[in-house]
Each structure stands twice: as C-alpha cells, then as structure tokens.
C-alpha cells in the first residue's frame, strides 16, 4: 500500500510517501498502524480524511496493499 502525506502531515511524519504491507485493513486498523509508526499523527487524526485511489472513502471502507491511500488534512486551496 502506498500512503501519501500532505501539508503539515509531511512535517509530522518526515516524509511525503511511504510504501507498507498492511494486508486488508479498515480505517481504524490503518490508523493504528500509522500512529504506532508515526506517533505525531495522533493529534491530527480527528481532522484528517482518508482517500483511496484518489477518492474520499466512506466510513466502512477497506484498504488493501494494491491501494494508494492519502491522508488529507483540512484543505485550504483558493
């Protein structure tokens, strides 16, 4: 699974993108793995939306190792 970080999450994790093998996980499982590796993500969790392959996901979504997953902090374009 490719995992993308944007904006201040890049500062929190120290990287823009990581490749990980998590198997099939739901959002809670994904967060648990990410936070155990990057504890600084914990405080952003409530405000971050997850996208899978370029689309926001529904709450029940599953993520697999073939997916590109993005952590989307509150946007500020325009």
């Amino acid at each position, binding site marked *: 699974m490719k995992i993308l970080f944007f904006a201040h999450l890049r500062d929190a994790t120290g990287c823009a993108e990581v490749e990980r093998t998590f198997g099939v996980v739901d959002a809670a499982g994904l967060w648990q793995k990410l936070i155990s590796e990057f504890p600084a993500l914990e405080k952003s969790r409530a405000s971050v939306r997850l996208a899978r392959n370029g689309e926001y996901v529904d709450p029940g979504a599953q993520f697999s190792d073939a997916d590109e997953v993005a952590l989307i902090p509150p946007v500020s374009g*325009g």
Partner: protein
Amino acid sequence: MKIEIQITTDAIAENAQAGVQHGEVGAWAEFRGLVRGEEDGQPIAALEYEAYLPMAEREMRRILGELSARHPCLAATIIHRIGVVPVGEAAIYIGVAARHRAAALALVAEFMDRLKQDVPIWKRRALTAAELKAN
C-alpha cells in the same frame, strides 16, 4: 457542460476565456482569488500551494458535475495555481458561461465553497519578501 481544468505553476492569464460560444451565452461570470499581503496578521510576500494532483482535478470535476445538475451552465474553466504565488496574483480562477446569469453566478459561488471544503490543495507556507527573493 464543457469543463476545462488546469493545475499549474504558471501565472494565471489575465483573461482566460471560458469557452464562450457566440450567441448562446447570455452570462459570463468570473472569479479570481488573489493572494493578500498578510496572513494571520503578519505581512507576507507570497504563499506556497501544494496539491494532491490527480485527486484535486478529479474532485473539481466531480463538484462541477454535481453543481451543474442544479445550475445548468454551458462551460466552466478552472485554473488553480500551485507552488509559490506572489501577493497580488491569482491562486484560483473560475470562469463560467451560461445562458442565464443566476446559474452562472450560483455555480461560481458554490464551486468556491466546495473547493475550500473538499479539494486537496493546501496553503503550505507563507513566504516573507526575503524568502521570496531567495526562492
């Protein structure tokens, strides 16, 4: 609706045309969001924008499709600039052509609201004059 979307590091041209078709278009609404000279009360010289590119474009297209069902328009052009955008220059341009003004104006206003909620583009940092010069 004809849709054209660009996400670019180039300056936004002064008068991008919204694919206006002679005779059919009765309303042409445009909006530019410009970088202001202060951010959080501090003077700045530029803002740096970052985008999740394919998703940003896809989201804009999705939002336009949704909105145009309620506000029928003929054409929409969106240009979002990324990278360093100096004060006074446009970070976003939207131009909408429609038969009637209410649809064009509503599409512009609602698109901007949705952009600021859903499209994965971020103001990454503010640059001072010295930082802009060094950039």
